[in-house]
């Protein structure tokens, strides 16, 4: 009896309070308080996140400069001769403008399609290249860097945002970002410089003869497939089949697989490819392909590269070597790679951008460029683990020999 009495009293009280203060007002206040608390909490966490990412960025930049320092000497020795021959014009401007800040104030919007080691290197190389040419971030150059997180709709809005702010130039990293930037800037007078586009001709960003289709130019990261095949043959003289995992929705990978198909017979290899749709397919596809091949070779496929640790784990268990396409992959545990160096590619892109910013040439007049030389990286720890011997000549030629396996650290 007592409890029901109490309940009745309480409900009556509640009704009275509601009548006095008003149900709606209470609810609104509730919502506002709740909303404010939640959003401040999220803001704090976001600021923390931003601070964290700044930290990692600065440390990675430090690491890069260290890397640069060690790589630079060797790179300079090997590549300077070729560069001097191939691009005298660049060197002239190099010498005259080095350490000299170009007059003016420029803003460049960088639209990067996804978060990914190679693409990050590309962006950093771009800034290094620009700095060499007298455009230094924070002095005469403002950079607005945006990342689309691999979402097409966001990439398109980023490009439109840059065009809306009338930046002096848009720099796009990876094919989808480049296509969106070109589409957004088409009617405006804003030059677009792209990088890490494997096949600019197939993407209709360049004509088959290499000339630009509009106010756009850049660099291509087409893989030196022939050099890679040659290297695999050298390390594994008895291998018969090469396996390649790739994402069917990535145009870059499709184009490269076609080149592999053309060139593999020349080096007596049989090609086994396995197409996947999402990163969730990778474990099963890897298990399957490892039963059929003597070694795996990676492309610059975004999804596959992101899941490389999974693939390497499985490959180590099956004692099958994985060849990479870039230095970061060898660092993680790939046996070797004969690939594009994205910092160098980014620098080259920076030189192109500097020519346009200085007003020497328009993007329309500049043909897109590729990197002709490939860089060899080997991982001797992986070789030891797999019981593979890397020929001494190759170990000497390699730009860097890693002695640790990144995924096992």
């Amino acid at each position, binding site marked *: 009896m007592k409890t029901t009495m109490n309940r009745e009293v309480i409900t009556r009280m509640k009704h009275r309070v509601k009548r006095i203060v008003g149900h709606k007002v209470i609810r609104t206040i509730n919502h506002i308080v*709740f909303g404010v608390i939640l959003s401040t909490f999220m803001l704090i*966490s*976001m600021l923390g996140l931003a601070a964290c990412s700044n930290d990692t960025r600065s440390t990675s930049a430090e690491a890069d400069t260290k890397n640069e320092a060690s790589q630079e000497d060797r790179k300079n020795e090997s590549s300077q001769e070729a560069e001097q021959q191939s691009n005298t014009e660049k060197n002239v401007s190099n010498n005259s403008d080095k350490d000299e800040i170009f007059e003016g104030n420029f803003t460049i919007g960088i639209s990067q399609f996804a978060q990914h080691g190679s693409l990050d290197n590309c962006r950093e190389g771009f800034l290094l290249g620009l700095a060499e040419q007298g455009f230094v971030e924070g002095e005469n150059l403002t950079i607005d860097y945006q990342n689309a997180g*691999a979402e097409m709709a966001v990439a398109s*809005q980023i490009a439109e945002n840059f065009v809306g702010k009338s930046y002096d130039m848009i720099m796009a990293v990876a094919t989808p970002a480049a296509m969106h930037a070109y589409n957004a800037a088409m009617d405006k007078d804003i030059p677009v410089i792209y990088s890490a586009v494997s096949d600019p001709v197939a993407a*209709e960003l360049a004509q088959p003869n290499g000339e630009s289709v509009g106010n756009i130019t850049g660099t291509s990261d087409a893989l030196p497939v022939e050099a890679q095949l040659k290297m695999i043959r050298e390390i594994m003289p008895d291998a018969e089949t090469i396996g390649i995992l790739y994402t069917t929705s990535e145009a870059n990978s*499709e184009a490269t697989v076609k080149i592999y198909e053309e060139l593999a017979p020349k080096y007596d290899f049989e090609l086994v490819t396995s197409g996947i749709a999402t990163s969730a397919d990778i474990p099963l596809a890897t298990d399957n392909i490892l039963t059929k091949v003597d070694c795996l070779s990676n492309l610059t496929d975004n999804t596959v590269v992101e899941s490389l640790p999974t693939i390497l784990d499985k490959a180590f268990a099956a004692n099958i070597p994985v060849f990479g396409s870039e230095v970061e992959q060898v660092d993680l545990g790939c046996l070797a790679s004969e690939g594009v160096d994205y910092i160098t590619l980014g620098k080259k892109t920076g030189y192109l951008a500097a020519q346009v910013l200085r007003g020497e040439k328009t993007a329309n007049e500049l043909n897109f460029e590729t990197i002709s030389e490939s860089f060899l990286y080997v991982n001797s720890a992986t070789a030891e683990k797999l019981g593979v011997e890397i020929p001494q000549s190759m170990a000497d030629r390699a730009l860097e020999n890693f002695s640790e396996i990144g995924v096992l650290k």
Partner: protein
Amino acid sequence: MTILIGIFEQGLIYAVMALGLYITYVILDLPDLTVDGSFPLGSAVCVALIIAGANPVLSLIISFFAGVIAGIITGIIHVKLRIRDLISGIIVMTGLYTINLIIAGKSNVPIFEATTIFNNDLLKQLPESFKPYRVLLVLIPIVILCKIALNRYLHTKSGLLLRSVGDNQNLITTMAKDPGNMKILGLALANGLVALSGAILAQQQRFFEASQGTGTMVMGLASVIIGIRLFARIKLMSFPLKVILGSIVYKAIVAVAIALGLSANSLKLITAILLLIILLIGEHGKREKAKQYD
């Protein structure tokens, strides 16, 4: 100004898709995942037809019907084969990925040089000052047409039946109609609109990309809920109009998040916070009404 135009362009294109989601999620109360596949399906069909030299408007219409077929397949799997709604959507979405690649030929197909509804001789004759608005000039009539057509349809006998499927299936049965068929019809119509939206997007951005369907459903659902919640108080507005405005608001949120740009990687988190704030503002409206559409 250009940013504003961009928001309206993107918002209106995705509004057509949001109208489709409004049919399945709100009217039919049926979670349809086919959308992530039928959106790029529209793009693929449209781009393939344009490359083959078809008329851009005709290719939009054919894309619509391609989406209708996808919706019918989901409907048949769900209603006739009695497979759960979520799974039947997943099945068709998964299958469509391959179909899209087959239709388009490869994963990324550009049509930068082709004649589209946004890039043709008629629009090139516009005076220079109208040039920035040319996409909107074409888009607004299309979206208004879709809205009016949907509004009209929902007031026909068949439309009224469709609306009652989500609310009270027994009513349909007592009227000697099959609720299953109405569901198939709704799914067909919804996916047709989604594919149409994909086709319009392909013509605006001038390329097809196999992965562009990812996240479509989330985006559309957010637009629908924003529209209905934010404008819950305004009774004069029809639901389709609210959904269209919701889509524009969603795109504006993303644009603001980009413009704020604290760090490149925090974009999604800022978008999430802005979404929450917008929804809480909308909460002041009639909660009872909004509740049904959660």
